[in-house]
């Protein structure tokens, strides 16, 4: 019993370290799945708690990155299921302005393209968004299959479907 606070602290430190290693991918997943900043904060907290609860299993996992993404995406799907916020919302003004302010003028075109991509990803159906987010973070098919608990064949089919939808959205967004 005496060791409990220490192990709790160890778990927190371990999860924070893992989060920092994958900060970019987790941040992008949060932004792509939840446009509302307050709801995004709740989602981030729920993911952190879920990772904390799974800290021991995460430590022992053969593919910790895949394990981490499984938790991130499952908590996100649960969030979408409960909150009914799967429909895309415009980027919040603050973030949009910050993105443009931070951007040198020669890269403004690139920045706008980047926003267009974020918009398109947000407009994808939840299942397609899930698989495309994983693929865009350079996870390979076996890892995606492990994360989503589906077969390699199903990953290929879903990814193809998602790419087609994303391409259509990108073209319509121009």
């Amino acid at each position, binding site marked *: 019993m005496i060791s409990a606070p220490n192990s709790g602290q160890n778990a927190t430190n371990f999860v924070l370290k893992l989060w920092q290693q994958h900060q970019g991918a987790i941040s992008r997943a949060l932004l792509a799945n939840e446009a509302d900043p307050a709801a995004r904060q709740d989602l981030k907290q729920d993911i952190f708690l879920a990772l904390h609860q799974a800290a021991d299993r995460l430590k022992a996992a053969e593919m910790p990155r895949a394990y981490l993404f499984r938790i991130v995406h499952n908590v996100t799907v649960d969030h979408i299921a409960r909150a009914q916020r799967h429909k895309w919302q415009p980027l919040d003004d603050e973030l949009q302005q910050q993105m443009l302010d931070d951007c040198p003028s020669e890269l403004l075109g690139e920045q706008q393209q980047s926003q267009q991509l*974020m918009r398109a990803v947000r407009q994808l159906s939840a299942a397609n968004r899930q698989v495309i987010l994983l693929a865009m973070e350079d996870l390979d098919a076996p890892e995606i299959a492990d994360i989503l608990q589906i077969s390699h064949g199903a990953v290929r089919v879903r990814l193809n479907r998602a790419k087609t939808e994303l391409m259509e959205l990108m073209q319509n967004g121009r």
Partner: protein
Amino acid sequence: MADNFDFDALAKSWQQQPADEAAPSTTDLAEASQRLREQKLLMYGEWLGAVIMAITAVWLLFNLPGWLGGVSALFLALGALSTAYISWQIHRPILAYDNWSSNGLLQFRRRACQLNVQHYRYTQLSCLALLLFTLVLWILHLWQLDDTPLTMLLFYSLIVSPACVFGIYRLQKKVHQKAIELAHLDALAADFD
């Protein structure tokens, strides 16, 4: 169609998106834990309600002999059991997200939503049964078929019946809300199939 898409370039562009979402802190962990505790408290509160219903059922069985006490006790016992079961199904927290698939999670939420609607319907029917019971009491009283105590008649007419009518109305609104949630969950589940 998707084969012509330069997905690698798109992935590269994606990875250059600003990732300025701050890392969580121990405060975030405390806030998420607090929400989990509140969810558990809601479940325990409903279990307490179920226990009170069960105790009332036993009390009725021993203190109101005859068919009236028996039916009322059975009614309450069924209510207690269904409340406890539904509460567990709806409010139990998911503690290991790593053991689920997205599809499994959605099916779980869908089933919880369906159970919730069924529970609301059952409660509406219970309210309707209480209204009918009040009507029977009035018939017995007016036609002098049975010696109905006046306090019981007034209690059911002035307190129980209005509460039941209000309950049916509120539950109908909740059923409508849950039907929208269920449609959303059906669409999501179909998407993930």
